[in-house]
Protein backbone atom coordinates (compact mmCIF):
# COMPACT_ATOMS: atom_id res chain seq x y z
CA UNK A 1 0.00 0.00 0.00
CA UNK A 2 1.47 3.31 -1.12
CA UNK A 3 1.76 6.20 1.27
CA UNK A 4 -1.17 8.63 1.50
CA UNK A 5 -0.04 12.04 0.24
CA UNK A 6 -3.32 13.96 0.15
CA UNK A 7 -5.94 13.54 2.79
CA UNK A 8 -9.10 15.53 3.40
CA UNK A 9 -10.96 14.97 6.67
CA UNK A 10 -14.35 16.61 6.85
CA UNK A 11 -12.83 19.54 4.98
CA UNK A 12 -15.32 22.43 4.88
CA UNK A 13 -15.40 25.93 3.54
CA UNK A 14 -18.22 28.41 3.95
CA UNK A 15 -18.60 31.89 2.48
CA UNK A 16 -21.11 33.62 4.71
CA UNK A 17 -24.22 31.46 4.72
CA UNK A 18 -23.12 29.54 1.63
CA UNK A 19 -21.30 26.25 2.09
CA UNK A 20 -19.06 25.78 -0.93
CA UNK A 21 -17.35 22.63 0.33
CA UNK A 22 -19.28 20.51 2.79
CA UNK A 23 -17.34 18.05 4.97
CA UNK A 24 -15.51 16.20 2.22
CA UNK A 25 -13.21 13.31 3.08
CA UNK A 26 -10.92 11.33 0.82
CA UNK A 27 -7.35 10.10 0.55
CA UNK A 28 -5.00 9.98 -2.41
CA UNK A 29 -2.06 7.59 -2.50
CA UNK A 30 1.38 8.45 -3.79
CA UNK A 31 1.70 8.04 -7.57
CA UNK A 32 -2.04 8.02 -8.20
CA UNK A 33 -3.87 9.99 -10.85
CA UNK A 34 -6.88 11.20 -8.91
CA UNK A 35 -9.75 12.71 -10.90
CA UNK A 36 -11.72 15.34 -9.04
CA UNK A 37 -14.98 15.68 -10.93
CA UNK A 38 -17.93 17.96 -10.52
CA UNK A 39 -20.18 20.38 -12.33
CA UNK A 40 -19.34 24.06 -12.45
CA UNK A 41 -19.94 25.51 -9.03
CA UNK A 42 -19.86 22.15 -7.27
CA UNK A 43 -16.94 23.34 -5.14
CA UNK A 44 -13.96 21.77 -6.92
CA UNK A 45 -11.88 24.90 -7.16
CA UNK A 46 -12.64 25.90 -3.59
CA UNK A 47 -11.53 22.45 -2.41
CA UNK A 48 -8.33 22.64 -4.47
CA UNK A 49 -7.55 26.12 -3.19
CA UNK A 50 -7.74 24.84 0.37
CA UNK A 51 -5.47 21.89 -0.41
CA UNK A 52 -2.78 24.05 -1.98
CA UNK A 53 -2.77 26.55 0.86
CA UNK A 54 -4.43 29.47 -0.93
CA UNK A 55 -7.60 29.41 1.14
CA UNK A 56 -8.07 28.72 4.82
CA UNK A 57 -10.54 25.91 5.57
CA UNK A 58 -13.52 26.85 7.75
CA UNK A 59 -13.36 23.51 9.51
CA UNK A 60 -12.03 20.02 9.04
CA UNK A 61 -8.50 19.14 8.08
CA UNK A 62 -6.43 18.84 4.94
CA UNK A 63 -3.09 17.06 4.99
CA UNK A 64 -0.88 17.36 1.94
CA UNK A 65 2.56 15.74 1.77
CA UNK A 66 2.36 15.27 5.52
CA UNK A 67 1.65 18.93 6.35
CA UNK A 68 -1.55 20.49 7.63
CA UNK A 69 -2.78 22.97 5.01
CA UNK A 70 -4.21 25.31 7.62
CA UNK A 71 -1.29 25.26 10.01
CA UNK A 72 1.63 25.04 7.63
CA UNK A 73 0.58 26.15 4.13
CA UNK A 74 4.11 27.26 3.23
CA UNK A 75 5.52 23.77 3.90
CA UNK A 76 2.80 22.33 1.68
CA UNK A 77 3.76 24.75 -1.09
CA UNK A 78 7.33 23.45 -1.20
CA UNK A 79 6.02 19.97 -2.04
CA UNK A 80 3.45 20.76 -4.68
CA UNK A 81 3.07 22.09 -8.18
CA UNK A 82 -0.09 23.84 -9.33
CA UNK A 83 -1.66 24.70 -12.62
CA UNK A 84 -4.70 26.92 -12.34
CA UNK A 85 -7.67 26.78 -14.67
CA UNK A 86 -6.91 30.32 -15.73
CA UNK A 87 -3.53 30.58 -17.43
CA UNK A 88 -1.39 32.35 -14.89
CA UNK A 89 2.14 32.48 -16.15
CA UNK A 90 3.36 35.84 -17.44
CA UNK A 91 2.08 36.46 -20.94
CA UNK A 92 4.49 39.34 -21.45
CA UNK A 93 7.53 37.17 -20.70
CA UNK A 94 9.01 34.60 -23.05
CA UNK A 95 8.85 30.84 -22.54
CA UNK A 96 12.45 30.79 -21.32
CA UNK A 97 11.92 33.75 -18.99
CA UNK A 98 8.89 32.16 -17.35
CA UNK A 99 10.80 28.95 -16.76
CA UNK A 100 13.74 30.89 -15.37
CA UNK A 101 11.55 32.91 -13.01
CA UNK A 102 9.79 29.92 -11.48
CA UNK A 103 12.97 27.86 -11.39
CA UNK A 104 14.56 30.73 -9.51
CA UNK A 105 11.67 31.05 -7.08
CA UNK A 106 11.82 27.32 -6.29
CA UNK A 107 15.53 27.69 -5.60
CA UNK A 108 17.02 25.76 -8.51
CA UNK A 109 20.73 26.35 -8.93
CA UNK A 110 21.94 28.05 -12.09
CA UNK A 111 23.23 24.76 -13.49
CA UNK A 112 19.93 23.03 -12.70
CA UNK A 113 18.02 25.90 -14.22
CA UNK A 114 19.95 25.71 -17.41
CA UNK A 115 19.66 21.94 -17.75
CA UNK A 116 16.02 21.90 -16.72
CA UNK A 117 14.86 24.62 -19.05
CA UNK A 118 16.73 23.14 -22.02
CA UNK A 119 15.22 19.75 -21.25
CA UNK A 120 11.70 21.16 -20.79
CA UNK A 121 11.78 23.24 -23.92
CA UNK A 122 12.90 20.25 -25.90
CA UNK A 123 10.33 17.90 -24.38
CA UNK A 124 7.55 20.41 -25.01
CA UNK A 125 8.78 20.85 -28.53
CA UNK A 126 8.94 24.61 -27.94
CA UNK A 127 12.49 25.12 -29.20
CA UNK A 128 11.37 27.45 -31.95
CA UNK A 129 9.26 29.47 -29.48
CA UNK A 130 11.85 29.66 -26.73
CA UNK A 131 12.18 33.44 -26.97
CA UNK A 132 8.63 34.04 -28.03
CA UNK A 133 6.38 35.91 -25.64
CA UNK A 134 3.88 33.55 -24.13
CA UNK A 135 1.01 35.79 -25.22
CA UNK A 136 1.72 34.80 -28.81
CA UNK A 137 1.54 31.04 -28.18
CA UNK A 138 -1.63 29.09 -28.94
CA UNK A 139 -3.65 28.05 -25.88
CA UNK A 140 -2.65 24.38 -26.11
CA UNK A 141 1.04 25.24 -25.92
CA UNK A 142 0.49 27.62 -23.10
CA UNK A 143 -1.22 24.84 -21.12
CA UNK A 144 1.70 22.53 -21.81
CA UNK A 145 4.10 25.20 -20.65
CA UNK A 146 2.07 25.79 -17.49
CA UNK A 147 2.15 22.07 -16.73
CA UNK A 148 5.88 21.92 -17.35
CA UNK A 149 6.43 24.85 -15.00
CA UNK A 150 4.32 23.11 -12.36
CA UNK A 151 6.69 20.12 -12.62
CA UNK A 152 9.86 22.21 -12.76
CA UNK A 153 10.94 21.78 -9.16
CA UNK A 154 10.08 18.05 -9.14
CA UNK A 155 7.22 18.27 -6.68
CA UNK A 156 5.71 15.18 -5.09
CA UNK A 157 2.18 16.23 -5.94
CA UNK A 158 0.79 18.31 -8.78
CA UNK A 159 -2.65 19.90 -8.70
CA UNK A 160 -4.19 20.55 -12.09
CA UNK A 161 -7.35 22.62 -12.12
CA UNK A 162 -9.14 21.96 -15.40
CA UNK A 163 -5.91 21.74 -17.32
CA UNK A 164 -7.54 20.93 -20.65
CA UNK A 165 -10.31 23.51 -20.59
CA UNK A 166 -10.86 25.01 -24.01
CA UNK A 167 -8.26 23.03 -25.98
CA UNK A 168 -8.88 20.77 -28.97
CA UNK A 169 -9.24 16.97 -28.60
CA UNK A 170 -5.81 16.19 -30.04
CA UNK A 171 -4.03 18.57 -27.70
CA UNK A 172 -6.10 17.16 -24.86
CA UNK A 173 -4.93 13.65 -25.74
CA UNK A 174 -1.32 14.82 -25.85
CA UNK A 175 -1.79 16.57 -22.55
CA UNK A 176 -2.94 13.33 -20.95
CA UNK A 177 0.13 11.61 -22.35
CA UNK A 178 2.27 14.04 -20.39
CA UNK A 179 0.14 13.42 -17.30
CA UNK A 180 0.82 9.69 -17.63
CA UNK A 181 4.47 10.40 -18.13
CA UNK A 182 4.59 12.41 -14.91
CA UNK A 183 2.67 9.72 -13.03
CA UNK A 184 5.10 7.09 -14.30
CA UNK A 185 7.94 9.02 -12.68
CA UNK A 186 6.16 8.77 -9.33
CA UNK A 187 4.37 12.13 -9.16
CA UNK A 188 0.89 12.16 -7.66
CA UNK A 189 -1.61 13.99 -9.84
CA UNK A 190 -4.78 15.61 -8.60
CA UNK A 191 -6.82 16.63 -11.64
CA UNK A 192 -10.14 18.42 -11.83
CA UNK A 193 -12.06 18.22 -15.05
CA UNK A 194 -15.53 18.25 -16.40
CA UNK A 195 -14.72 16.16 -19.44
CA UNK A 196 -16.14 12.80 -18.47
CA UNK A 197 -14.00 10.87 -20.99
CA UNK A 198 -10.96 12.17 -19.13
CA UNK A 199 -12.31 10.65 -15.96
CA UNK A 200 -11.72 7.24 -17.51
CA UNK A 201 -8.00 7.98 -17.69
CA UNK A 202 -7.76 8.39 -13.92
CA UNK A 203 -6.82 5.69 -11.41
CA UNK A 204 -9.59 6.83 -9.09
CA UNK A 205 -12.19 9.54 -9.24
CA UNK A 206 -14.52 11.42 -6.96
CA UNK A 207 -17.64 13.22 -8.09
CA UNK A 208 -18.59 16.37 -6.25
CA UNK A 209 -22.18 17.54 -6.18
CA UNK A 210 -23.20 20.67 -4.26
CA UNK A 211 -20.07 20.75 -2.14
CA UNK A 212 -20.23 17.08 -1.16
CA UNK A 213 -18.56 14.00 -2.54
CA UNK A 214 -21.32 11.91 -4.08
CA UNK A 215 -19.20 9.09 -5.44
CA UNK A 216 -15.64 7.89 -4.95
CA UNK A 217 -13.69 4.97 -6.40
CA UNK A 218 -12.06 3.46 -9.48
CA UNK A 219 -13.90 4.33 -12.67
CA UNK A 220 -14.56 0.68 -13.54
CA UNK A 221 -15.77 -0.17 -10.03
CA UNK A 222 -18.05 2.87 -9.97
CA UNK A 223 -19.61 1.92 -13.26
CA UNK A 224 -20.16 -1.62 -11.99
CA UNK A 225 -21.69 -0.45 -8.70
CA UNK A 226 -23.99 2.03 -10.36
CA UNK A 227 -24.80 -0.23 -13.29
CA UNK A 228 -23.80 2.45 -15.73
CA UNK A 229 -22.02 2.26 -19.08
CA UNK A 230 -19.97 5.38 -18.64
CA UNK A 231 -18.84 7.86 -16.03
CA UNK A 232 -20.86 10.39 -17.94
CA UNK A 233 -24.02 8.47 -17.14
CA UNK A 234 -23.18 8.29 -13.44
CA UNK A 235 -22.33 11.94 -13.39
CA UNK A 236 -25.58 13.00 -14.98
CA UNK A 237 -27.55 10.75 -12.63
CA UNK A 238 -25.82 12.24 -9.57
CA UNK A 239 -25.68 15.82 -10.68
CA UNK A 240 -29.13 16.16 -12.21
CA UNK A 241 -31.13 16.53 -8.98
CA UNK A 242 -28.71 19.21 -7.88
CA UNK A 243 -28.84 21.04 -11.17
CA UNK A 244 -32.61 20.77 -11.34
CA UNK A 245 -32.84 22.15 -7.82
CA UNK A 246 -30.76 25.19 -8.56
Amino acid sequence: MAETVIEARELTRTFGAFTAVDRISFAVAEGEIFGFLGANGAGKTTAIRMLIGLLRPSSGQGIVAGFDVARDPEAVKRQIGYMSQKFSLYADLTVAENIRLYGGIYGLSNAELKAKSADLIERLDLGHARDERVARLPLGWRQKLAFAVALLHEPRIVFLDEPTGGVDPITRRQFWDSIYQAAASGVTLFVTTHYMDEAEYCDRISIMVDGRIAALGEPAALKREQGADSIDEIFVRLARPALAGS
Partner: protein
Amino acid sequence: MRTLRFLLQKEFLQIFRDRQILPMIFLMPILQLIVLASAATFEVKSAKVDLLDQDHSPTSRRLVEHFAATGYFRITGRPASLAEAERDLELSRARMILNIPPHFEEDLRRNRRARLLLAYDAVDGATAGILSSYSAVILGRFEREEQAELAVERRSAAPLVRTSPSFWYNRELSYRAFMVPGILVELVTMVGLLLCALNIVREREIGTIEQLNVTPLKRWQFIVGKLVPFWLLGLAALALGLLVAKLVFAIPIRGSVPLVFAIAAVYLLAMNGLGLAVSALSYTQQQATFLALFVLLASILLSGLFTPIDSMPLWAQKLTLANPMAHFVEINRRILLKGSGFGEIQDHFWYLPAAAGIILPLAVLRYRKVGS
Protein backbone atom coordinates in the same frame (compact mmCIF):
# COMPACT_ATOMS: atom_id res chain seq x y z
CA MET B 1 18.36 37.16 -1.84
CA ARG B 2 18.79 35.09 -4.96
CA THR B 3 15.04 34.66 -5.27
CA LEU B 4 14.68 38.42 -5.07
CA ARG B 5 17.03 38.81 -8.00
CA PHE B 6 14.78 36.64 -10.15
CA LEU B 7 11.73 38.64 -9.12
CA LEU B 8 13.36 41.98 -9.82
CA GLN B 9 14.60 40.77 -13.16
CA LYS B 10 11.07 39.72 -14.07
CA GLU B 11 9.60 43.01 -12.90
CA PHE B 12 12.01 45.12 -14.93
CA LEU B 13 11.59 42.94 -17.99
CA GLN B 14 7.86 43.55 -17.77
CA ILE B 15 8.14 47.26 -17.13
CA PHE B 16 10.55 47.86 -19.99
CA ARG B 17 8.45 45.76 -22.30
CA ASP B 18 5.22 47.54 -21.53
CA ARG B 19 4.40 49.96 -24.30
CA GLN B 20 2.08 52.01 -22.14
CA ILE B 21 3.60 52.08 -18.71
CA LEU B 22 7.10 53.08 -19.70
CA PRO B 23 6.12 56.11 -21.78
CA MET B 24 3.63 56.93 -19.05
CA ILE B 25 6.40 56.96 -16.47
CA PHE B 26 8.72 59.15 -18.47
CA LEU B 27 6.58 61.15 -20.85
CA MET B 28 3.71 62.01 -18.54
CA PRO B 29 5.92 63.65 -15.95
CA ILE B 30 7.54 65.85 -18.57
CA LEU B 31 4.23 66.77 -20.12
CA GLN B 32 2.74 67.43 -16.76
CA LEU B 33 5.65 69.54 -15.72
CA ILE B 34 5.41 71.58 -18.88
CA VAL B 35 1.64 71.95 -18.87
CA LEU B 36 1.06 72.32 -15.15
CA ALA B 37 3.96 74.60 -14.50
CA SER B 38 2.85 76.90 -17.29
CA ALA B 39 -0.89 76.69 -16.74
CA ALA B 40 -1.01 76.55 -12.97
CA THR B 41 -0.25 80.19 -12.52
CA PHE B 42 -1.97 82.87 -10.54
CA GLU B 43 -0.24 85.57 -12.51
CA VAL B 44 -2.78 87.62 -14.42
CA LYS B 45 -1.64 89.08 -17.67
CA SER B 46 -3.27 91.54 -20.05
CA ALA B 47 -6.55 91.78 -18.20
CA LYS B 48 -9.18 93.56 -20.28
CA VAL B 49 -9.96 97.03 -18.98
CA ASP B 50 -12.76 99.41 -19.89
CA LEU B 51 -11.50 102.92 -19.64
CA LEU B 52 -13.90 105.71 -18.83
CA ASP B 53 -11.77 108.83 -18.88
CA GLN B 54 -14.03 111.78 -18.05
CA ASP B 55 -11.16 114.12 -17.33
CA HIS B 56 -9.21 114.05 -20.58
CA SER B 57 -6.25 115.75 -18.99
CA PRO B 58 -2.52 115.11 -19.33
CA THR B 59 -2.57 113.67 -15.82
CA SER B 60 -5.36 111.20 -16.58
CA ARG B 61 -3.51 110.14 -19.70
CA ARG B 62 -0.37 109.58 -17.67
CA LEU B 63 -2.36 107.46 -15.25
CA VAL B 64 -3.72 105.30 -18.06
CA GLU B 65 -0.22 105.04 -19.45
CA HIS B 66 0.95 103.64 -16.11
CA PHE B 67 -1.67 100.91 -16.28
CA ALA B 68 -1.04 99.98 -19.89
CA ALA B 69 2.75 99.97 -19.55
CA THR B 70 2.83 97.12 -17.05
CA GLY B 71 1.43 94.55 -19.46
CA TYR B 72 -0.94 93.34 -16.77
CA PHE B 73 -3.74 95.51 -18.13
CA ARG B 74 -4.91 96.13 -21.63
CA ILE B 75 -7.34 98.91 -22.48
CA THR B 76 -9.85 97.10 -24.65
CA GLY B 77 -12.85 99.38 -24.40
CA ARG B 78 -13.60 103.05 -24.13
CA PRO B 79 -17.29 103.19 -23.26
CA ALA B 80 -19.11 106.47 -23.35
CA SER B 81 -20.83 106.08 -20.02
CA LEU B 82 -20.54 104.23 -16.73
CA ALA B 83 -23.69 102.28 -17.60
CA GLU B 84 -22.08 101.05 -20.78
CA ALA B 85 -18.95 100.09 -18.88
CA GLU B 86 -21.02 98.15 -16.37
CA ARG B 87 -22.65 96.31 -19.19
CA ASP B 88 -19.22 95.28 -20.50
CA LEU B 89 -18.37 93.93 -17.07
CA GLU B 90 -21.61 92.00 -17.01
CA LEU B 91 -20.91 90.44 -20.40
CA SER B 92 -17.33 89.62 -19.38
CA ARG B 93 -16.04 91.92 -22.10
CA ALA B 94 -13.98 93.61 -19.41
CA ARG B 95 -12.51 92.43 -16.13
CA MET B 96 -12.11 95.89 -14.70
CA ILE B 97 -13.46 99.40 -15.13
CA LEU B 98 -11.07 102.26 -14.71
CA ASN B 99 -13.26 105.28 -14.15
CA ILE B 100 -11.48 108.65 -14.01
CA PRO B 101 -14.01 111.27 -12.92
CA PRO B 102 -14.09 114.81 -14.30
CA HIS B 103 -11.71 117.33 -12.70
CA PHE B 104 -9.32 114.55 -11.72
CA GLU B 105 -6.26 116.62 -12.54
CA GLU B 106 -7.62 119.73 -10.99
CA ASP B 107 -8.55 117.99 -7.74
CA LEU B 108 -5.17 116.44 -7.56
CA ARG B 109 -3.37 119.72 -7.98
CA ARG B 110 -5.58 121.86 -5.86
CA ASN B 111 -6.45 119.51 -3.02
CA ARG B 112 -3.69 116.98 -3.46
CA ARG B 113 -6.43 114.37 -3.34
CA ALA B 114 -8.65 112.98 -6.06
CA ARG B 115 -11.19 110.20 -6.42
CA LEU B 116 -10.85 107.26 -8.77
CA LEU B 117 -13.22 104.37 -9.31
CA LEU B 118 -11.87 100.87 -9.96
CA ALA B 119 -14.51 98.19 -10.38
CA TYR B 120 -13.59 94.52 -10.79
CA ASP B 121 -15.45 91.47 -12.01
CA ALA B 122 -15.04 89.41 -8.85
CA VAL B 123 -16.73 86.19 -9.91
CA ASP B 124 -13.21 84.83 -9.81
CA GLY B 125 -12.30 86.42 -6.52
CA ALA B 126 -8.68 85.40 -6.64
CA THR B 127 -8.09 87.10 -9.96
CA ALA B 128 -9.96 90.21 -8.85
CA GLY B 129 -7.83 90.34 -5.73
CA ILE B 130 -4.66 90.04 -7.74
CA LEU B 131 -5.77 92.78 -10.16
CA SER B 132 -6.61 94.98 -7.23
CA SER B 133 -3.17 94.56 -5.72
CA TYR B 134 -1.51 95.20 -9.08
CA SER B 135 -3.57 98.40 -9.32
CA ALA B 136 -2.50 99.46 -5.87
CA VAL B 137 1.14 99.14 -6.81
CA ILE B 138 0.59 101.04 -10.06
CA LEU B 139 -1.31 103.80 -8.30
CA GLY B 140 1.39 104.06 -5.68
CA ARG B 141 4.01 104.53 -8.35
CA PHE B 142 1.84 107.04 -10.19
CA GLU B 143 1.30 109.00 -7.01
CA ARG B 144 4.99 109.17 -6.21
CA GLU B 145 5.83 110.47 -9.63
CA GLU B 146 3.08 113.05 -9.54
CA GLN B 147 4.13 114.15 -6.12
CA ALA B 148 7.72 114.53 -7.21
CA GLU B 149 6.55 116.73 -10.02
CA LEU B 150 4.38 118.77 -7.72
CA ALA B 151 7.22 119.08 -5.30
CA VAL B 152 9.38 120.61 -7.97
CA GLU B 153 6.63 123.03 -8.89
CA ARG B 154 5.77 123.98 -5.34
CA ARG B 155 9.14 123.38 -3.79
CA SER B 156 7.56 121.29 -1.12
CA ALA B 157 9.24 118.33 0.42
CA ALA B 158 9.22 114.91 -1.18
CA PRO B 159 7.44 112.18 0.81
CA LEU B 160 9.41 111.10 3.84
CA VAL B 161 8.83 107.39 3.66
CA ARG B 162 9.60 105.47 0.60
CA THR B 163 9.29 101.70 0.55
CA SER B 164 11.18 99.58 -1.86
CA PRO B 165 10.31 95.91 -1.49
CA SER B 166 12.98 93.31 -2.04
CA PHE B 167 11.78 89.78 -2.74
CA TRP B 168 14.07 87.07 -1.48
CA TYR B 169 14.70 83.62 -3.00
CA ASN B 170 12.40 84.27 -5.95
CA ARG B 171 13.30 87.75 -7.05
CA GLU B 172 11.09 87.86 -10.12
CA LEU B 173 8.17 86.48 -8.08
CA SER B 174 8.01 83.76 -10.69
CA TYR B 175 5.04 81.58 -10.01
CA ARG B 176 6.64 78.84 -12.03
CA ALA B 177 9.74 78.71 -9.87
CA PHE B 178 7.41 78.30 -6.93
CA MET B 179 5.31 75.57 -8.58
CA VAL B 180 7.91 73.31 -10.17
CA PRO B 181 9.47 71.91 -6.97
CA GLY B 182 5.99 70.98 -5.77
CA ILE B 183 4.99 69.43 -9.06
CA LEU B 184 8.14 67.32 -8.98
CA VAL B 185 6.92 65.91 -5.70
CA GLU B 186 3.55 65.17 -7.24
CA LEU B 187 5.20 63.23 -10.07
CA VAL B 188 7.28 61.16 -7.71
CA THR B 189 4.10 60.43 -5.78
CA MET B 190 2.22 59.29 -8.86
CA VAL B 191 4.90 56.78 -9.80
CA GLY B 192 5.49 55.57 -6.28
CA LEU B 193 1.85 55.24 -5.28
CA LEU B 194 -0.39 54.87 -8.31
CA LEU B 195 1.78 52.72 -10.54
CA CYS B 196 2.88 50.58 -7.64
CA ALA B 197 -0.71 49.91 -6.55
CA LEU B 198 -1.91 49.23 -10.09
CA ASN B 199 0.91 46.83 -10.81
CA ILE B 200 0.10 44.59 -7.88
CA VAL B 201 -3.64 44.64 -8.49
CA ARG B 202 -3.06 43.87 -12.13
CA GLU B 203 -1.33 40.65 -11.15
CA ARG B 204 -4.27 39.83 -8.95
CA GLU B 205 -6.75 40.55 -11.71
CA ILE B 206 -4.93 38.51 -14.35
CA GLY B 207 -4.39 35.70 -11.89
CA THR B 208 -0.60 35.57 -12.07
CA ILE B 209 -0.38 36.37 -8.39
CA GLU B 210 -2.08 33.07 -7.61
CA GLN B 211 0.71 31.15 -9.32
CA LEU B 212 3.20 33.05 -7.17
CA ASN B 213 1.13 32.42 -4.08
CA VAL B 214 1.34 28.63 -4.46
CA THR B 215 5.13 28.81 -4.49
CA PRO B 216 7.12 28.92 -1.26
CA LEU B 217 7.91 32.56 -2.10
CA LYS B 218 8.01 34.50 1.15
CA ARG B 219 5.71 37.42 1.69
CA TRP B 220 8.56 39.85 2.22
CA GLN B 221 10.27 38.65 -0.94
CA PHE B 222 7.17 39.33 -2.98
CA ILE B 223 6.68 42.74 -1.40
CA VAL B 224 10.30 43.82 -1.74
CA GLY B 225 10.26 42.54 -5.31
CA LYS B 226 7.28 44.75 -6.02
CA LEU B 227 8.36 47.87 -4.15
CA VAL B 228 11.99 48.14 -5.23
CA PRO B 229 11.20 48.67 -8.94
CA PHE B 230 8.73 51.45 -8.22
CA TRP B 231 11.02 52.97 -5.65
CA LEU B 232 13.73 53.14 -8.31
CA LEU B 233 11.32 54.37 -10.96
CA GLY B 234 10.17 57.13 -8.63
CA LEU B 235 13.77 58.28 -8.23
CA ALA B 236 14.29 58.05 -11.99
CA ALA B 237 11.20 60.18 -12.58
CA LEU B 238 12.60 62.71 -10.11
CA ALA B 239 15.94 62.80 -11.93
CA LEU B 240 14.18 63.36 -15.20
CA GLY B 241 11.90 65.99 -13.72
CA LEU B 242 14.80 67.89 -12.20
CA LEU B 243 16.53 67.84 -15.54
CA VAL B 244 13.47 69.25 -17.29
CA ALA B 245 13.02 71.83 -14.53
CA LYS B 246 16.61 72.96 -14.97
CA LEU B 247 16.83 72.84 -18.75
CA VAL B 248 13.33 73.84 -19.82
CA PHE B 249 12.24 76.12 -17.02
CA ALA B 250 15.61 77.31 -15.81
CA ILE B 251 14.42 76.74 -12.26
CA PRO B 252 17.21 77.58 -9.88
CA ILE B 253 18.62 74.58 -8.05
CA ARG B 254 20.31 76.28 -5.15
CA GLY B 255 20.53 73.41 -2.68
CA SER B 256 22.10 69.99 -2.76
CA VAL B 257 20.70 67.59 -5.35
CA PRO B 258 21.90 64.50 -3.44
CA LEU B 259 19.93 65.79 -0.45
CA VAL B 260 16.78 66.00 -2.59
CA PHE B 261 17.29 62.41 -3.69
CA ALA B 262 18.01 61.20 -0.18
CA ILE B 263 14.74 62.70 1.01
CA ALA B 264 12.85 61.40 -2.01
CA ALA B 265 14.19 57.94 -1.17
CA VAL B 266 12.64 58.10 2.28
CA TYR B 267 9.46 59.71 0.97
CA LEU B 268 9.03 57.01 -1.66
CA LEU B 269 9.10 54.34 1.03
CA ALA B 270 5.98 55.89 2.51
CA MET B 271 4.33 56.23 -0.92
CA ASN B 272 5.18 52.64 -1.87
CA GLY B 273 3.64 51.63 1.42
CA LEU B 274 0.47 53.53 0.52
CA GLY B 275 0.46 51.91 -2.90
CA LEU B 276 0.78 48.49 -1.34
CA ALA B 277 -2.03 49.31 1.08
CA VAL B 278 -4.27 50.42 -1.78
CA SER B 279 -3.54 47.21 -3.67
CA ALA B 280 -4.26 45.10 -0.60
CA LEU B 281 -7.68 46.72 -0.35
CA SER B 282 -8.61 46.33 -4.03
CA TYR B 283 -9.54 43.36 -6.15
CA THR B 284 -9.70 45.04 -9.54
CA GLN B 285 -7.61 47.67 -11.26
CA GLN B 286 -10.70 49.85 -11.39
CA GLN B 287 -11.05 49.81 -7.62
CA ALA B 288 -7.36 50.42 -7.18
CA THR B 289 -7.36 53.34 -9.60
CA PHE B 290 -10.28 54.92 -7.81
CA LEU B 291 -8.79 54.43 -4.38
CA ALA B 292 -5.31 55.56 -5.40
CA LEU B 293 -6.69 58.65 -7.13
CA PHE B 294 -8.67 59.49 -4.03
CA VAL B 295 -5.58 59.20 -1.85
CA LEU B 296 -3.58 61.16 -4.40
CA LEU B 297 -6.10 63.99 -4.69
CA ALA B 298 -6.53 64.24 -0.97
CA SER B 299 -2.75 64.37 -0.59
CA ILE B 300 -2.40 67.03 -3.26
CA LEU B 301 -5.18 69.22 -1.86
CA LEU B 302 -3.68 69.03 1.60
CA SER B 303 -0.10 69.45 0.45
CA GLY B 304 0.14 73.18 -0.06
CA LEU B 305 1.00 72.54 -3.68
CA PHE B 306 -1.75 74.72 -5.12
CA THR B 307 -3.08 76.48 -2.05
CA PRO B 308 -0.95 77.82 0.76
CA ILE B 309 -1.25 75.78 3.94
CA ASP B 310 -1.12 78.99 6.00
CA SER B 311 -4.44 80.11 4.59
CA MET B 312 -6.20 76.81 5.32
CA PRO B 313 -8.52 76.56 8.31
CA LEU B 314 -6.77 75.36 11.43
CA TRP B 315 -8.16 71.82 11.29
CA ALA B 316 -6.95 71.42 7.72
CA GLN B 317 -3.55 72.76 8.70
CA LYS B 318 -3.41 70.06 11.38
CA LEU B 319 -4.33 67.45 8.77
CA THR B 320 -1.48 68.47 6.52
CA LEU B 321 0.92 67.40 9.27
CA ALA B 322 -0.13 63.82 8.62
CA ASN B 323 0.37 64.21 4.88
CA PRO B 324 3.87 63.17 3.81
CA MET B 325 3.39 65.02 0.53
CA ALA B 326 2.94 68.36 2.32
CA HIS B 327 6.30 67.92 4.03
CA PHE B 328 8.15 66.93 0.89
CA VAL B 329 6.64 69.83 -1.09
CA GLU B 330 7.83 72.25 1.55
CA ILE B 331 11.25 70.58 1.82
CA ASN B 332 11.74 70.55 -1.94
CA ARG B 333 10.87 74.22 -2.24
CA ARG B 334 13.29 75.08 0.52
CA ILE B 335 16.14 73.03 -0.93
CA LEU B 336 15.68 74.08 -4.54
CA LEU B 337 14.70 77.72 -4.13
CA LYS B 338 16.34 78.71 -0.85
CA GLY B 339 19.28 76.37 -0.95
CA SER B 340 18.40 74.99 2.48
CA GLY B 341 20.57 72.27 3.92
CA PHE B 342 19.50 69.36 6.10
CA GLY B 343 19.59 71.57 9.19
CA GLU B 344 16.94 73.89 7.77
CA ILE B 345 14.49 71.20 6.71
CA GLN B 346 14.60 68.98 9.76
CA ASP B 347 11.33 70.33 11.11
CA HIS B 348 9.59 68.71 8.13
CA PHE B 349 11.95 65.85 7.42
CA TRP B 350 11.29 63.68 10.45
CA TYR B 351 7.66 63.25 9.49
CA LEU B 352 8.77 61.27 6.43
CA PRO B 353 10.60 58.36 8.08
CA ALA B 354 7.81 58.36 10.67
CA ALA B 355 5.17 58.02 7.93
CA ALA B 356 7.14 55.29 6.18
CA GLY B 357 7.64 53.54 9.50
CA ILE B 358 3.90 53.46 10.14
CA ILE B 359 2.43 52.93 6.67
CA LEU B 360 4.84 50.32 5.34
CA PRO B 361 4.57 47.75 8.16
CA LEU B 362 0.77 48.12 8.23
CA ALA B 363 0.55 47.54 4.48
CA VAL B 364 2.90 44.57 4.68
CA LEU B 365 0.81 43.03 7.45
CA ARG B 366 -2.34 43.59 5.47
CA TYR B 367 -0.96 41.75 2.46
CA ARG B 368 -1.96 38.06 2.56
CA LYS B 369 -0.85 35.00 0.69
CA VAL B 370 -3.63 32.85 2.08
CA GLY B 371 -7.24 33.90 1.57
CA SER B 372 -9.22 33.97 4.79
